[in-house]
């Protein structure tokens, strides 16, 4: 069985092309089932950054042609953006994908779940089952043994991580959103995913504030109401299109009196800025603007890249293990034939000596059986090990042929 991969990703294809070959779950399952006809194994992995078809087939050429044709049916232009990998290279690629090493943001966590779902929806057999299970294992191992997925990879997730640095558990924290645009909503969703509660949404246009507040389960406020709520808020996220400051230091200073020294984190995602930079100088106030957050993201991404180097070696070791297992499959039939032949000879020789053996009692006969079996096993042990080693080093098929020739193992035994 050969492992074949045909696919495209953000490395080769722009989003306009990727979106045309992206598959819904049902489509991926249907395509996998269709390509698996004729005894093949198939898994279709489709995410926003990649569409890949993994096949296990005896005829690798034909499997590859079918996969290319299937993707070209979705979008003919994709043909020039496809990569084609086989066996060890295909397995290593899948392991890197599962570990997040091939992702746009190194170490992103979503891909592991996507690989798991693709595996579940696929039409798998011994080979793809093994390679996908091992890929999921190595993905989890990389996340457990390196810090590749620990740090935030976007401005809004950096803002949420900062909130956790200041307050710890965000469950009982009150968030005030200033501005009701997409950026505010994205930041709010990131904070909510970490347990925070969006208390208020303030916006110049009351209608938009109410609409976003409804979606987030918050209360809408006019911009003039911000100062009053500052005494209660723990995090302020500002992202309006106002030309000047929406909140100045004097207003925050007035609000501090009612806060009894509680920390206040202010995130300014707007350009031009919504929050007066002098706020940062006030006690227990921490103001981060878009440049600060981008610097944090750049630093954490460089940290992820450093961790990616460690992750690469873990993934390579896992891929080697898979390769050894896969390569051994080539020589397994020859080993099985050799052992069967040896056993056949042993039994035939014992049969010939039956006249002598029948004089022995039961325990003596068992001893003869055990000794002859041991001799066969000991004789075949080293050739078996050497053939498996040769298989891992790509000479396995040659060794298998040599063994068949030397021991006269017939075609019917293959």
């Amino acid at each position, binding site marked *: 069985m050969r492992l074949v991969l045909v696919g495209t990703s953000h490395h080769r294809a722009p989003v306009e092309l990727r979106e045309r070959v992206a598959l819904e779950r049902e489509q991926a399952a249907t395509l996998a089932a269709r390509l698996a006809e004729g005894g093949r194994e198939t898994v279709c992995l489709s995410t926003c950054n990649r569409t890949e078809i993994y096949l296990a087939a005896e005829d690798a050429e034909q499997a590859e042609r079918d996969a290319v044709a299937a993707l070209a049916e979705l979008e003919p232009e994709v043909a020039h953006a496809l990569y084609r990998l086989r066996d060890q290279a295909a397995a290593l690629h899948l392991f890197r994908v599962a570990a997040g090493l091939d992702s746009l943001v190194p170490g992103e966590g979503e891909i592991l779940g996507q690989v798991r779902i693709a595996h579940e929806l696929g039409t798998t057999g011994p080979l793809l089952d093994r390679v996908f299970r091992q890929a999921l294992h190595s993905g989890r191992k990389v996340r457990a043994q390196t810090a590749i997925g620990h740090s935030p990879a976007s401005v809004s997730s950096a803002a949420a991580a900062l909130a956790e640095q200041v307050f710890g558990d965000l469950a009982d924290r009150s968030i005030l959103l200033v501005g009701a645009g997409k950026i505010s909503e994205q930041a709010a969703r990131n904070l909510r995913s970490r347990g925070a509660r969006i208390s208020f949404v303030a916006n110049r246009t009351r209608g938009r504030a109410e609409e976003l507040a409804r979606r987030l389960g918050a209360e809408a406020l006019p911009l003039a109401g911000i100062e009053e709520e500052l005494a209660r808020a723990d995090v302020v996220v500002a992202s309006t299109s106002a030309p000047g400051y929406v909140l100045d230091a004097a207003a925050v200073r007035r609000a501090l009196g009612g806060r009894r*020294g509680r920390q206040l984190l202010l995130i300014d995602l707007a350009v031009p800025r919504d929050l007066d930079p002098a706020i940062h100088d006030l006690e227990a106030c*921490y103001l981060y603007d878009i440049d600060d957050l981008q610097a944090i993201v750049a630093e954490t991404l460089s940290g992820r890249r450093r961790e990616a180097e460690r992750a690469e070696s873990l993934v390579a070791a896992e891929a080697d293990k898979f390769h050894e297992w896969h390569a051994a499959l080539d020589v397994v039939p020859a080993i099985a034939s050799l052992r069967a032949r040896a056993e056949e000879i042993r039994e035939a020789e014992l049969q010939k000596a039956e006249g002598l053996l029948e004089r022995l009692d039961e325990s003596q006969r068992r001893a003869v059986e055990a000794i002859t079996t041991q001799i066969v096993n000991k004789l075949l042990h080293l050739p078996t090990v050497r053939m498996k080693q040769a298989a891992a080093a790509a000479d396995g098929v040659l060794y298998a042929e040599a063994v068949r020739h030397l021991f006269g193992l017939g075609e019917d035994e293959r």
Partner: protein
Amino acid sequence: MAELLFWPALLLYGEAAVGYLGDARRPGVAGRAATWGVRLGWLAQTALLGVQAARRDGFPWATWAGSLNLFVWLVVSAYLIWGCRRPYRLLGLTVMPLAAVLLVVARAGGGTGVGGTSHYSNLFLVLHVGLVLAAFAGFTLAASLSGLYLWQERRLKQRAATVLRRSVPALATLDGLALRTVAWSLPALTLGLGVGLVRLVVDGDRVDALVLATGVTWLVWAAYLWLRFVAGWSGRRAAYLALAGFALVIVVRLALPATHFA
């Protein structure tokens, strides 16, 4: 036997101090090794205290050096409540070097062997020495938490791009833990001091410099709680006050004790 147990305890505390230093530079294996150093060192010192208690018919830590030995054990015990969790490893960087140095000082003063008997009753010694030392251990931990708070607060104020690189407890968590630690420790100090003062009055002894300094320490930590609960202090100001209170603990523990224990 006590001698045999002192060295593993010291070596493991020392290993933990070095490990935490390594963890501060590059988080990972060194931090885990340090955590195990604290755990095993604490077990060795617990055994040491156990041997001291078994060899002596009574409270064996009534001397200055002996009480320092017990103080180290209490500080490490208090640290172990949180210290083994990953975000608190930086706390170990402040606690464990102090523990290792004080253990050496305790040994130099003869506090890790089997000392002579005290003319005070065991109950009095347990209540007075035990409670005062437990309170001081709590204050030490609160000061360490406050130091970590100030370090992390400074990084947040500097808006360092590396602010998320290390796993550190949140500011609010550190602030709250320091407050809770002091809230448990001050009643212990109050009770321990009260028992000592009653004995002082009963025996007709004079108030010495150590008693006065301990009284001032009590006032500072009482002010800490009052300012936090009543005046609404928190964060940086409270952390500085905790460090001032800890400076007094050090003076009381190391600079003034000779006459008191004589």
